[in-house]
């Protein structure tokens, strides 16, 4: 199977290609210099070509998102009929797995990261990922509120912590370390509803900052390709930018901050809620250790689901919406609350502006990734709309004046003139997330994996990026004329960890027999 793409205008920041017109040859799943077999021709004259999109933070698979799908039958406002060999599906803010794979492929994405895996339910996440076609995947392991992590940090034996983390990553076949409001869930279990970075965690007498430092140290020693992926404490509360800045100064080498928009809030009540994107981006611009994904609010009727149980309980009390919560033994909690964002709401309008401010005021876009923390700030199918806001001041101003006027008074979005180019869009959706993740991603270059998206240019950027004209995945055409035509399964990446601490494993054998409700043989993902 070989393909010859002719006269495509290529944007590929990985190889510094900015709008060159060139041919791209594909054979046996790779980009090649010459073809051995007669190829299928794709005339890409005047069309934009990019490598496959990378989404560094999207809740698409696992027990939390599935509990969300179950919670909201009313979220099924979009349906997918099963025809020509493709599966059916349903769901707007939380689509079912097949529909998720097809929708991401249609937008030209080829690599997704599920950022929250409770270790004891890792099999569930892997099972759902295997039912998400047309994309390669990786998953991050929740360790920020893990009992044994906190215990090892409290006892000060960091080497044992390193080996425990290595054993966990290998056992659950996951790719990196995820912290969600470290220490907040552990404190919440004993009645403490809000935890600041320097508060002592009951029963452990360590602080969230110790947990961040401890796990970063383990990540460095294990030479993990992706740095610790952190959901900062105080996410979602007004006035949380101060504690966020404290935690952003903690890392020794590298830290990736998830959905930074949720941690850039000022004001001391919901009434005078305001944007502090400028303060936050100032720290990111000067601190080389930090990278972030934005978590852009799209003002839809979506669902918030996060491992930050205390915040989700607070949100359910604030909004009187449904509330589902799952405490997982010795590992982490999670909470789900449907949330209908509205442009007329003074807080939501400013939240919308904060995300755009962070991206537009960032100096080095190779530290920035596009995301909506799907589905928290909005469903991933809104990425093209976000791109249209980032690429044109006129489009975002037109959208802004439909919102609550707080967006003008309490954020500086309308004073920013920057408009991102196609090259910069390719950075925040392709090269930046791939580099931060540390995955093998060579862009458009001979020898690279053939994951390619071809778009028809259009003034309406949302229309342009909503459906790619052609998408090639693993060297095969899977989207043609804006329709998914084939379904093939991608692979799930995981960190290659060899665990060489037999003494720790014996200890874990007895620990599991003593305190876990499942046998250790059932914990290992086969």
């Amino acid at each position, binding site marked *: 199977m070989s393909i010859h793409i002719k006269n495509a205008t290529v944007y590929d920041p990985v190889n510094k290609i900015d709008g060159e017109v060139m041919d791209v040859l594909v054979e046996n799943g790779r980009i090649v210099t010459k073809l051995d077999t007669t190829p299928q021709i794709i005339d890409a004259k005047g069309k934009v070509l990019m490598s496959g999109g990378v989404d560094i933070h999207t809740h698409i*698979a696992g*027990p939390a998102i*599935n*509990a969300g*799908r*179950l*919670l*909201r*039958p009313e979220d*099924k406002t979009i*349906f*997918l*009929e*099963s*025809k020509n060999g493709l*599966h*059916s*599906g*349903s*769901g707007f803010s*939380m*689509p*079912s*797995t*097949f529909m998720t794979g097809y929708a991401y492929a249609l937008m030209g994405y080829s690599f997704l990261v599920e950022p929250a895996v409770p270790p*004891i*339910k890792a*099999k*569930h996440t892997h*099972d*759902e990922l295997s*039912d998400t076609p047309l994309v390669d995947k990786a998953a991050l392991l929740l360790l920020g509120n893990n*009992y044994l992590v906190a215990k090892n940090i409290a006892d000060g034996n960091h080497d044992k912590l390193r080996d425990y983390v290595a054993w966990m990553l290998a056992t659950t076949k996951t790719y990196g370390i995820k912290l969600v409001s470290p220490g907040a869930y552990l404190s*919440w*279990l004993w*009645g403490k509803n809000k935890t600041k970075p320097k508060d002592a965690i009951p*029963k452990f007498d360590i602080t969230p900052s110790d947990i961040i430092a401890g796990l970063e140290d383990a990540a460095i020693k294990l030479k993990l390709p992706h740095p610790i992926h952190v959901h900062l404490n105080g996410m979602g509360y007004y006035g949380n930018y101060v504690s966020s800045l404290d935690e952003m100064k903690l890392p020794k080498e590298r830290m990736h901050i998830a959905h930074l928009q949720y941690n850039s809030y000022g004001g001391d009540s919901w009434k005078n809620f305001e944007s502090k994107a400028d303060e936050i981006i100032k720290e990111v611009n000067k601190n080389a250790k930090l990278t972030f994904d934005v978590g852009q609010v799209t003002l839809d009727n979506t669902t918030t689901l996060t491992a930050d149980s205390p915040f989700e*309980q607070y949100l*359910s*009390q604030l909004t009187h919406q*449904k*509330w*589902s*919560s*799952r*405490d*997982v*033994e*010795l590992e982490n909690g999670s909470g*789900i*609350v449907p949330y209908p964002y509205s442009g007329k709401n003074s807080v939501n309008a400013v939240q919308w502006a904060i995300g755009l401010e962070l991206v537009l005021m960032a100096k080095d876009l190779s530290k920035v990734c596009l995301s909506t923390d799907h589905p928290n700030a909005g469903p991933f199918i809104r990425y093209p709309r976000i791109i249209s806001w980032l690429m044109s001041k006129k489009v975002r101003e037109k959208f802004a004046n439909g919102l609550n006027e707080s967006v003008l008074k309490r954020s500086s979005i309308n004073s920013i003139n920057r408009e991102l180019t196609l090259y910069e869009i390719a950075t925040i959706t392709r090269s930046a997330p791939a580099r931060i993740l540390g995955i093998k991603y060579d862009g458009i270059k001979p020898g690279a994996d053939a994951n390619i998206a071809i778009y028809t240019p259009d003034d309406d950027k949302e229309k342009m990026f909503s459906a790619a004209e052609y998408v090639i995945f693993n060297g095969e055409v899977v989207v043609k004329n804006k329709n998914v035509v084939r379904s093939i399964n991608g692979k799930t990446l995981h960190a290659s960890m060899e665990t060489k601490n037999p003494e720790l494993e014996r200890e874990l054998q007895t620990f599991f027999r003593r*305190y*876990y*409700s*499942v*046998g250790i*043989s*059932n914990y290992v993902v*086969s």
Partner: protein
Amino acid sequence: MMISDVTCPVCGCGCDDIRVQLDDSKIAKVYGVCIMGQQKFRKSQSPERITKPLKKEDGKFVEISWDDAINEAAEILSKASHSLFYGWSETSCEAMKVGIDLAELTHGFIDGQSSHCHGPSIIGEQSVGIPSCTLGMVMNYADLVIYWGSNPIESHPRHMSRFSTYPRGIYSGEGRRDRKIVVIDTRKTLTANVSNLFFQIKPNSDFELISALRMVLNGKEIPDEVAGLNREEITKLADTMKNCGYGVVFVGLGLTHSKGKSNNVENLYHLVRRLNDFTRFNVIPMRGHYNVAGLNQVLTWRTGYPFAVDFFRGYPCYNPGETSVIDILARGEVDAMLSISSDPVSHFPKKCVEHLAEIPIISMDIVRTPTTELSDLVIPGVITGIDAVGTYYRMDNIPLIAKKIIEPPFDFTHSDEETLKKIYDKILEKKKK
């Protein structure tokens, strides 16, 4: 030879610490398993096991070949205009996936036992949300455990000794002494024998008792007697719940099957949500079969809905009360049925069984049951957890691997998944013709 870490394929406890002693590939002794599990391990070896496909010809069963059975099944399902795929709670998640593909391919219904067991708990969850936790949290943190309309000693025998009452957790080191066990039921059950508090309530009055508890928590006046309990008892129960460190309510069919059904459970979820303003409180529905929760998980991630899914428009539709198995059978909206690892003819209402008698039924099971007797085609089932490997989900939605310890008593198939896959491919073949 001794096999350890064996899983028990019977109830929602999903015990995975069983050990089986094999003597020349026959099950000799089973260690750690309760009496319900023991019956299943023994049944897997019993001569009653169905080992050959059977086809009904003028009222009597005739043995047929494996290929004929697959062809016959595919014939029935392709000819039907609206087929029902029912059961699934005692087979693997892998078999369920093929079942969903079958329902999608034939534009039929798929539903499981959860629709008429803990369906009301799921409907309650869909309108209020459920604060819940895994069984390990109960073991390590809970100091108050309430069994409401549930009698684990008889339905989930090892539940109290493995998870809720007797283990010594991290923050419940004294085991039994660190925990208060409360039973709320309409009769004094065996579980009540070993509980600290037992509240005997009038049948069909759970809803009123829950409203009374919510009013006490809101500081409101309640009448002298509600649901057969006097005001002091209700206030005492409310205070016990409010002042615990970490509380858990296990919800049984006493709540979901008494009058009020999903409203009882909805009211309970409101109560537990309110209790989370004082302390940490969670609910765990006592799911019956060992993989009934698995069907809800797999169906939800593949179609968006947990049970009662209808593909007749080519995409998933869901409306319990309209697309659930009892209603579609009572209205006669089905003209063929595949029943896997279940016995609807014994358990369904009369009106449904009358309709079942008129339509062709394919049943996949391990022993003869009233359903197989009424069927037109019987295909031997494989026991996931004894004859075959498979994934299953425990009552708290934790995924576990069912282990294979002996070979099935036949060689034409190795798992339910493989059987269903053959039927699926045969239907595809017929569609292409």
